[in-house]
């Protein structure tokens, strides 16, 4: 977070230095879930749109290699990810826009089992923590379902884990 604030206020040299440092920390080009902030990357941008539970469209500039769950959380979307991307829950359930759905690799059997447990499942459902951005997902829309398996009927919003 500090890095992104500095980058926003500093000049382009500072930005490039910080970016280099961040990349060094997260071990190479983009890191799924690494500490790198949502800055403007070099030539590896994948523009996607998150649609939150109220229907608000949130355009996001992701990078190749970004994990969709962590990308959503970094941009303040209410995707819980209770098991922190360890394939043990279904709270990062998203609907993927066609035709991007078919460009994703087929889900693992364990992902399918967890999807079975997600309420309001649709044919275009996937677990967000299993989607890694690539250039083929340019323009993809990821829509959050209205509910997840965790019952927050009182309106409670869990903080990202």
């Amino acid at each position: 977070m500090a890095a992104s604030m500095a980058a926003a206020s500093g000049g382009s040299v500072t930005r490039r230095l910080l970016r280099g440092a961040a990349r060094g920390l997260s071990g190479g080009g983009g890191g799924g879930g690494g500490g790198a902030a949502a800055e403007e990357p070099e030539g590896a941008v994948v523009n996607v749109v998150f649609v939150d539970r109220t229907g608000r469209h949130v355009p996001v500039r992701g990078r190749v290699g970004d994990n969709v769950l962590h990308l959503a959380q970094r941009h303040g979307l209410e995707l819980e990810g209770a098991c922190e991307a360890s394939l043990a829950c279904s709270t990062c359930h998203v609907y993927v826009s066609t035709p991007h759905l078919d460009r994703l690799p087929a889900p693992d059997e364990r992902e399918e089992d967890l999807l079975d447990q997600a309420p309001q499942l649709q044919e275009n459902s996937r677990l967000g923590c299993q989607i890694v951005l690539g250039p083929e997902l340019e323009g993809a829309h990821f829509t959050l379902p209205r509910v997840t398996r965790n019952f927050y009927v009182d309106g409670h919003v869990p903080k990202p884990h």
Partner: protein
Amino acid sequence: AGRSGDGGGALRPLYMDVQATTPLDPRVLDSMLPYLTAYYGNPHSRTHAYGWESEAAMEKARRQVADLIGADSREIIFTSGATESNNMAIKGVARFYKSRKKHIITTQTEHKCVLDSCRSLETEGFRVTYLPVKKNGLIDLKELEVAFQPDTSLVSVMTVNNEIGVKQPIHDIGEICRARKVFFHTDAAQAIGKIPMDVNNMKIDLMSISGHKIYGPKGVGAIYVRRRPRVRLEPLQSGGGQERGLRSGTVPTPLAVGLGVACEVAQQEMEYDHKRISKLAERLVTKIMSEVPDVVMNGDREHRYPGCINLSFAYVEGESLLMALKDVALSSGSACTSASLEPSYVLRAIGTDEDLAHSSIRFGIGRFTTEEEVDYTVQKCIQHVKRLREMSPLWEMVQDGIDLKSIKWTQH
């Protein structure tokens, strides 16, 4: 058969209605009792031994059901019976895929829960094709092939019919559906444990199973839902996500254990039972038909399950024959239609004339049916058919050589 339950002290009738329900096999009862008395934990309780032992019993039962049909145990979901399983399969699959697929194919001879589920989907905007059957009760595969539409999501055809006992060509239907990538559901309530079933061999994607048709307890059944390729369905029952999210609710461990053991016992006894029941069925049919003329067997002679025999006795009213055979528990159609005054739609679908449809009796032969019971039933049946025909003016006319079809009956 002991004394009757109303305390009257009279002997109980012989039970020849196994398609309606079956008695508990004693081995099934033995397996259930500990879970009704001592091991009463909730199988979904994860934190103590009561839960763990109950869960272990439930998972063992799941495996036993799966083994009977060649499935993986993760593909078995416990339900309250085949009616719930049929509702889940038909409404669940249709609604899940409704954004792209709006058409379902089934047959005119399905169980009422299948037909009613289809009718209720029609009010939701789905289109349903009810395939007719041939005079022998089997569907015409060519008619099935042309019934497919680009937006067909499901085909539902029962394996063995509960009224007339015919066995549909499940293998061929499975091939046809798989080639068109349409899910194939079969209501196998009357078939499993009686004839070999293999969901992979027969390319079945969903299957309904009933406990009380295979000498298991009432109130439990299962649905098989294929994992590869994955079949998705919209759950009917919402809740805590038990049974893979497809059927929430505490699984009744004693009932599940009973279903599991019933399946295991059936697998062991299948060959022996089938041979013995076939012999008894042959005995019943041959004896009746050799003594009494003008008896029609409804449904194909060969492609059938032998333990379900539906005979129409011309010129005799079915209900009066049933009343006459008061020492034998029989039925004239299926239990679920006996309260309504509607004549059997299954017999109508195979082209039975209305008068013959009213003259039909279903004989059920099961694991515990004895030769003496069959002989007694046959003897009484022959005796009463002859007696009722003596009283029948129609029979008299036929004996005098009058063609009944040529008569113009006047309206009163």
